[in-house]
């Protein structure tokens, strides 16, 4: 099915199952511990032995020699894989560095060996006996120091490096009110709770991987490419994923080394990347340096806006596209955005939840707070004044498909009690707490991707959906079941959903908040095809047939779909393909974040007291899991604002705090009640589901709302994230802090 003109009314609009809050259908398996994750496939690979990854001890250089004698002779050791015996390996399309390093080392903790033994204890122990002699080379590890050598990157996922409209320099120079500030955001780690893990088994030349991966088709292809075998010979199975946030978009070392290990020892091997290896071995969100300039009139109406972003990555890597939202969010005739990419020899940078916007808004939305103060305009009102209903770089010829941004600001402010905010900072004191409120806009692009599915009904009228789509906590199982149930007129309980197997039709996968909208649209397409087949069997006209209560009906005639399907069942397969609606219309999701913090008058400890947000993201397929996505993302925004930072050792080139004790993320005690309002919205230009993405919108702007609340509480404006106690205390003099 091709989606190339706006959706008209369709069976999803009935809203009997879709759009109703539903408990997750995979819930009972998850709460009882019976949902099998990648390292737990005793059922599928009962004879699996254990692989332990050895990571490089240097960031850049060469392996001179490997002495594996002692390791090989250790109890229980079955084999050792290194670059010396792995055979020729290619590199996946989505990988920047090689997953198995050597002799060249590209980053610290790059996998250089896998030690395989009969037990985990033996493998771990023997791994320490491997003697590797390195010849280290000087590397570049400090983004600030490399800014000068940064270059414009090629056009990638985030569009071109630079965009321009009007004459920014002239307009900025003549603007009555000017903001010009520099902000920094640190490297961050996804820190999903399940480390990357894979169980691999060969059967002749056929390879099966039970793994934890967001993008089944990409990764099956990249594994085949890396091993130089046909993609048809690789089966990748990823039904449950213990969080991803972008860390599991790509093939990683666990998968490649499990496959190589299993080939070496001639039996299944399982490999998990040990938690302390995860931040340096895998990908992370790159640090940024950002400059935001805004020129406005005295009422805060923007005439000129510029956002310059610097980030770094390994040779061949990509930029953090943190200026993306600045291209679309606010009005202004004179515009400029630039991205510059420095070469760094740190571990590989890549996508983490809302790449681009998540850190771009940490800068832009604080700059907007600074503009509001400079113009003496309420920050909510300032954003409303700068709304624009079309792509401001192109003009009215490219309108937004839907944009309820102002409504989000207004309704969000009302619910939160924004009117109680004191406009002057440092004025509100409750006991030992300075109290402040902040607002920030939420914006995230709406991406769509081709997605396929097959759907069948059996003789009893039970429906089964199969697609390689993944559920990384996003609720895919349930929204796919809802879509199938709505389309075929059966209850949710009559639908089984099978996900995450490369034998199923290729889907959009989970990433960039495109998964829910795209994959359900693929199921919609397959269900149309099945409806057609059922109608034909019933002798009805497909476009007049109504599906409800397990029956297909036309006029006053009706037949149970189960009996039409017959004993052998009836299946259909299709995919959704998207035309140029995303070019003709700017498509994005919007919202407004509100936050109230308390800052301890003596210690400068920041406590988030309340958070609230209003969001417009098209049809909300399952309001229950969508709300969970949003509060989870808001919490990640709190982490970004207050605590998350991979500290770089700029001498040796690695992240120092590489585990869950040292890389801080929010815990229960950090997070209060969170209020989420979804605005009623249908976006007919986004997909037949009229939905948009929502999984990343919640992080976009959340941290800036915290930062602005801290300013409102204390009068201290920090521009280097995370906003920690030491930075506040340093600036305490003359502030509201004691």
């Amino acid at each position, binding site marked *: 099915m091709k989606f190339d003109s706006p959706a008209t009314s369709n069976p999803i609009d009935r809203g009997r199952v879709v759009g109703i809050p539903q408990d997750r259908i995979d819930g009972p398996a998850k709460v009882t511990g019976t949902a099998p994750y990648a390292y737990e496939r005793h059922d599928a690979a009962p004879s699996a032995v254990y692989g332990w990854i050895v990571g490089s001890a240097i960031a850049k250089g060469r392996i001179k020699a490997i002495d594996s004698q002692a390791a090989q002779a250790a109890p229980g050791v079955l084999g050792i894989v290194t670059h010396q015996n792995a055979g020729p390996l290619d590199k996946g399309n989505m990988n920047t560095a090689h997953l198995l390093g050597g002799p060249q080392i590209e980053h610290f903790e790059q996998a250089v060996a896998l030690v395989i033994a009969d037990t985990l204890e033996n493998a771990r122990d023997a791994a320490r006996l491997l003697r590797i002699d390195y010849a280290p080379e000087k590397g570049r590890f400090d983004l600030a120091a490399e800014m000068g050598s940064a270059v414009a990157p090629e056009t990638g996922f985030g569009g071109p490096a630079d965009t321009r409209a009007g004459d920014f320099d002239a307009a900025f120079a003549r603007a009555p009110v000017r903001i010009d500030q520099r902000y920094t955001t640190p490297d961050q780690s996804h820190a999903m709770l399940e480390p990357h893990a894979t169980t691999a088994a060969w059967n002749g030349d056929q390879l099966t991987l039970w793994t934890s991966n967001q993008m089944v088709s990409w990764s099956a292809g990249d594994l085949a490419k890396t091993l130089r075998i046909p993609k048809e010979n690789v089966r990748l199975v990823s039904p449950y994923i213990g969080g991803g*946030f972008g860390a599991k978009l790509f093939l990683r070392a666990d998968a490649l080394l499990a496959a190589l290990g299993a080939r070496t020892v001639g039996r299944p091997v399982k490999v998990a990347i040990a938690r302390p290896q995860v931040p340096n071995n895998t990908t992370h969100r790159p640090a940024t340096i950002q400059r935001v300039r805004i020129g406005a009139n005295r009422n805060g109406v923007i005439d000129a806006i510029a956002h310059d972003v610097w980030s770094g990555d390994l040779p061949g890597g990509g930029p953090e596209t943190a200026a993306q939202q600045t291209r679309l969010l606010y009005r202004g005739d004179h515009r400029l955005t630039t991205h510059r990419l420095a070469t760094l020899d740190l571990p590989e940078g890549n996508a983490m939840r809302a790449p681009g916007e998540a850190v771009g808004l940490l800068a832009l939305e604080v700059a907007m707070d600074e503009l509001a103060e400079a113009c003496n305009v309420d920050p909510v009102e300032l954003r409303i004044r700068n709304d624009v209903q079309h792509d401001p770089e192109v003009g009215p010829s490219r309108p937004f498909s839907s944009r309820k941004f102002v409504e989000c600001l207004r309704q969000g402010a009302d619910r939160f009690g924004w009117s109680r905010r004191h406009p002057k900072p440092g004025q509100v004191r409750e006991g030992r707490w300075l109290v402040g409120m902040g607002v920030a806009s939420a914006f995230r692009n709406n991406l769509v991707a081709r997605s396929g599915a097959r759907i069948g009904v059996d003789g009893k009228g039970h429906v089964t959906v199969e697609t390689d789509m993944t559920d990384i906590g996003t609720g895919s199982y349930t929204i796919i079941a809802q879509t199938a149930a709505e389309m075929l007129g059966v209850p949710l309980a009559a639908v089984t959903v099978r996900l995450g197997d490369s034998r199923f039709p290729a889907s959009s996968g989970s990433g960039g908040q495109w998964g829910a909208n795209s994959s359900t649209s693929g199921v919609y397409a397959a269900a149309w095809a099945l409806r057609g087949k059922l109608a034909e069997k019933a002798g009805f006209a497909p476009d007049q047939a109504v599906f409800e209560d397990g029956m297909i009906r036309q006029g006053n005639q009706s037949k149970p779909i189960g009996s039409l399907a017959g004993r052998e069942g009836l299946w259909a397969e299709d995919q959704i393909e998207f035309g140029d609606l995303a070019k003709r219309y700017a498509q994005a999701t919007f919202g407004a974040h509100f936050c109230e913090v308390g800052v301890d008058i003596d210690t400068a400890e920041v406590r988030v007291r309340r958070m609230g947000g209003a969001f417009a993201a098209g049809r909300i397929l399952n309001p229950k899991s969508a709300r969970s996505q949003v509060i989870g993302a808001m919490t990640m925004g709190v982490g970004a604002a207050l605590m998350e930072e991979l500290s770089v050792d700029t001498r040796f080139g690695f992240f120092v705090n590489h585990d869950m004790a040292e890389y801080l993320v929010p815990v229960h005690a950090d997070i209060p009640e969170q209020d989420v309002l979804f605005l009623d919205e249908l976006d007919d230009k986004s997909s037949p589901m009229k939905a948009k993405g929502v999984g990343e919108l919640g992080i976009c702007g959340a941290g800036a709302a915290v930062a602005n609340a801290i300013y409102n509480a204390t009068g201290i404006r920090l521009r280097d994230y995370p906003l920690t106690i030491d930075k506040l205390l340093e600036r305490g003099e003359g502030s509201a802090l004691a």
Partner: protein
Amino acid sequence: MVAVELNVNGREAHLQLDPRTTLLDTLREHLHLTGTKKGCDHGQCGACTVIVEGRRINSCLTLAVMHQGDKVTTIEGLGTPERLHPMQRAFVTHDGYQCGYCTPGQICSAVAVLEEIEAGIPSHATDDLEKVAFSDAEVRERMSGNICRCAAYPNIIAAIRDVAGEDKA
């Protein structure tokens, strides 16, 4: 190899184990009770929480040989998909999870937390040591060793509140 006897979810287990085997790996790799999760293996995340002799512990931070004869309750011992424990049911109702990987640990912890409060064991958040009572702040404090990166935190608190009979709704 050492002989280790455990009582897991009411069943006797007689094991021959490498003495380096953690309780967590004993459950997951030897008894195939994979409901207990490994998030860090270093006592940093809480995914491996089980209840041993009535107290919740991080099973990655303790060796199986240290638990000769101990009674261990894992997520599998609380309920099954067909017969959910009230806490498991409440997690489903309140969407107290997303990816599900921290979930068994959160649930084991939550069950034990309610018992701790009932038993009058104070926490950092307790105002009056004589009167330990249920409150959201008490539960948030006590659950803070169980990290949820998906951050279902408010929903988890709602689920626990529900089971405690404190639901305001």
